[in-house]
């Protein structure tokens, strides 16, 4: 889509600084240690992995540092990458196979403690570290060849490597700035405390300049970027965190920031109504917001109404998603038809119940559930990042009203998002709650398996208490397929199984809106927010 990319008569101009409003500060300057949207957004400008996704798409894998997509051994265990030549890190050292090997070995060898705790992407992609990791070894037979050996076949391997935490960084810089220090408090590379160019040293179009925690992160142009077609126009990018989302629109309107990375949906109307501003379209988002449910027979010792599939279906029919989209997302979302957003790898269209209050009562009747005493608790988080749930409170109370209209009595409960809410949902203490999941990488596995319904130690997850052995088998099979075609088929089967069971109620896929001043040109948006700002230029 990339609506900002309309070429102006004068053509792109070089120079200028772009100020970007972020919803919160970045966490660490080492991309391998971050998992939050803001840190990743910044890291994407600076580091590059072997592979990536095509600009604007969710799951079109393209080679980046590799000159082509890898060749895969028939057993699906060895991936051979050829590297582009002549690429240098921002510190001037060469990118070569040894450097790539260094990075993979480094991640795999992260010790227990701070580093392992934060390197969640690596853990998610490979299932753990060291011996527990599916990454067996990395070979660098020659300076431009890298071979990655897996222990088991892994159908999501390649797409998982498209994200910033797998960006290759300069071994020299990591070594010089104590980047492997196991205690993050004294790891200057991760904290960016050693000053300009001493952290986040990658190969991307922008270079890390400085970071004042809580205040701003500055990137500067990488004039020697290896891809001549993608050389950046901007001199500098300044990322400015805003604790209060309502302030971002004001800042944009006053011209103090040029670009709001995650615009408050409530500000959409004001943005479209302002001739100086443009609303940037990112296409469909790589996320799903659902009315999460615990399907176990008892929750917290009490019998659980939601163990009854009829009740779940009734709820699914009672929620008026289009109204929520209009009310809380400024129209910038689509009704979810699956637990996997469309556009993700191996997505299949499913047909879930739509808003229909009579239908909802019908489900209850069919399931033989008495229509009295249908008491539910609905939890929502306070202080959740707007990029996760822009208005959790509003959404929760609207859902509660709809459920009440369908005959349920709902008690609303709230907790602070981090850590209590997250901890309680993970521990299975909540029976019904609002949950929004943003993809790490745009694969069906990332939602259905990793985020939601995988079994741990052969038992359903504590969070959802959803037991469906066929479905679980289908997913594990799909994950270990050695070919894409097989994986696609298996994932379709898995999706059909879960849709028939309605373990939770997917509500919507938000299109995260971004806003900019109208002189910001050349922006290419992506639903997964992997957006490289090298194409952006300022028309002023």
């Amino acid at each position: 889509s990339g609506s900002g990319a309309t070429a102006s008569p004068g053509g792109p101009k070089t120079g200028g600084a772009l100020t970007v409003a972020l919803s919160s500060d970045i966490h660490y300057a080492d991309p391998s240690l971050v998992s939050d949207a803001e840190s990743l957004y910044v890291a994407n400008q600076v580091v590059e992995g072997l592979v990536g996704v095509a600009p604007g798409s969710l799951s079109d894998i393209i080679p980046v540092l590799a000159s082509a997509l890898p060749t895969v051994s028939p057993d699906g265990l060895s991936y051979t990458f050829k590297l582009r030549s002549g690429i240098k890190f921002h510190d001037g050292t060469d990118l070569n196979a040894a450097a790539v090997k260094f990075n993979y070995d480094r991640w795999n060898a992260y010790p227990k403690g701070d580093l392992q705790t934060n390197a969640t992407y690596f853990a998610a992609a490979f299932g753990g570290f060291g011996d527990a990791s599916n990454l067996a070894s990395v070979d660098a037979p020659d300076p431009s060849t890298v071979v990655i050996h897996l222990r088991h076949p892994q159908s999501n391997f390649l797409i998982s490597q498209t994200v910033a935490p797998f960006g290759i960084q300069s071994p020299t810089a990591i070594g010089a700035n104590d980047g492997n220090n196991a205690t993050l408090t004294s790891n200057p590379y991760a904290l960016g405390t050693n000053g300009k160019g001493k952290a986040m040293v990658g190969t991307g179009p922008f270079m890390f300049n400085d970071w004042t925690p809580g205040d701003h992160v500055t990137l500067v142009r990488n004039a020697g970027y290896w891809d001549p077609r993608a050389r950046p126009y901007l001199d500098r990018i300044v990322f400015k965190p805003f604790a209060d989302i309502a302030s971002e629109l004001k800042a944009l309107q006053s011209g103090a920031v040029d670009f709001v990375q995650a615009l408050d949906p409530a500000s959409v109307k004001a943005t479209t109504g302002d001739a100086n501003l443009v609303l940037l379209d990112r296409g469909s988002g790589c996320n799903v917001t659902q009315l999460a449910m615990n399907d176990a027979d008892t929750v917290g010792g009490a019998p659980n109404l939601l163990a009854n599939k009829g009740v779940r279906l009734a709820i699914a029919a009672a929620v008026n998603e289009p109204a929520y989209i209009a009310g809380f997302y400024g129209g910038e979302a689509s009704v979810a038809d699956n637990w996997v957003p469309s556009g993700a790898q191996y997505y299949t269209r499913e047909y879930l119940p739509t808003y229909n209050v009579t239908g909802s009562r019908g489900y209850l009747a069919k399931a033989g559930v008495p229509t009295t005493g249908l008491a539910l608790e609905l939890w929502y988080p306070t202080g959740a990042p707007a990029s996760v749930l822009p208005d959790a409170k509003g959404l929760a109370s609207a859902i509660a009203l709809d459920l009440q209209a369908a005959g349920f009595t709902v008690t609303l409960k709230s907790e602070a998002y981090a850590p209590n809410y997250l901890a309680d949902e993970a521990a299975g203490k909540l029976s019904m709650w609002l949950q929004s999941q943003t993809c790490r990488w745009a694969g069906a596995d990332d939602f259905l398996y990793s985020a939601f319904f995988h079994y741990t130690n052969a038992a359903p997850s504590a969070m959802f208490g959803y037991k469906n052995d066929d479905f679980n088998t289908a997913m594990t099979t799909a994950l270990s397929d050695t070919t894409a075609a097989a994986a696609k088929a298996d994932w379709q089967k898995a999706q059909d199984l879960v849709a028939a069971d309605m373990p939770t109620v997917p509500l919507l896929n938000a299109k995260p809106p971004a806003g900019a001043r109208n002189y910001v040109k050349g922006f290419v948006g992506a639903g997964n927010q992997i957006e490289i700002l090298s194409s952006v230029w300022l028309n002023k």
Partner: protein
Amino acid sequence: MARFIIRRLLVAIPVLFGLSVILFLFLRLLPGGGPAEAILGQHATPQLVAQISATEGFDKPLYEQYLTYIGRLLHGDMGSSFIDGRQVADTFLIRFPGTLELTMGAMIFAIGLGIPLGRLAARHPNSWIDAVVTVISLFGISIPVFVLGYTLAFVFGVQLHWLPTFGQLDPRLDVDPVTHFAIIDALLAGHWYVIDAVSHLILPSIALGSIPLAVFTRITRASVIDVSNEDYVRTARAKGLTDRRVNDRHIMRNAWLPLTTVIGLETGALLAGAVLTETVFTWNGVGSWVVTSIQNHDFIVVQSLVLIFAVIFMTVNLIVDVGYAFLNPRIRYS
């Protein structure tokens, strides 16, 4: 005078001791299991809980834990944030200058406007001027900081484009954070960037300064009227001094006494009031840090910040008391 200061410092010791006990217990009595669980939150796995309990010593008897806690505090170790892993002291050094700048801006606004307004009203008691000043101060203390903040930002930032509405400096300017005082850093960077720094300070200072403005106006008015009725002012007039001299030397010198006390109290309150203002104006200070830490349940940070705030508050009060003593010879010479 030195004895006075020492006395005041000694008085502070039991207070700090009591506060440290309360804060120490605060972390250990948090709802939701033990302190380790509270600190770990979503990451709480049995292994991590055990690990944290061991490193932080949560498994030891309480008094022993307290001694360790105090020992660390005395070495300047206030622990580190569980969210970003940074030392509280390090982040504090980055963020405190912003808060100090904001507080001083607000104070300059409140004192600079409040005292002249109060004097003006006191010169014309019960006149329309007095009424206007009274209404200003009435609304000053009745408007929540965030309502005023939003209104100011909307009017002066969004509508009129006169002043910036967030942050300490335009992030596009190339200013090195040397001291983390935006104004000083901007001065060091040259290019008249300091104008930008000052313009960023204006709206938040007004929002934060509204309450002290109102308080100072009232106190000034009341104490100027009080002092004007004192015998020694009558004496001064009877000596044939000019109005100006009577006002500046005899009335104001004495009216400053209650004012200093109030200024001290308000400065302390401002530091806390900055919690709201910094959030409204995206100010990178300690106040917004408190808010995010509370929202993130980053309790070690909260615990340390409350202690720091208390120390600052008491320090401010000490400074004010010393100032008071300096202004008031009765205390200076006793």
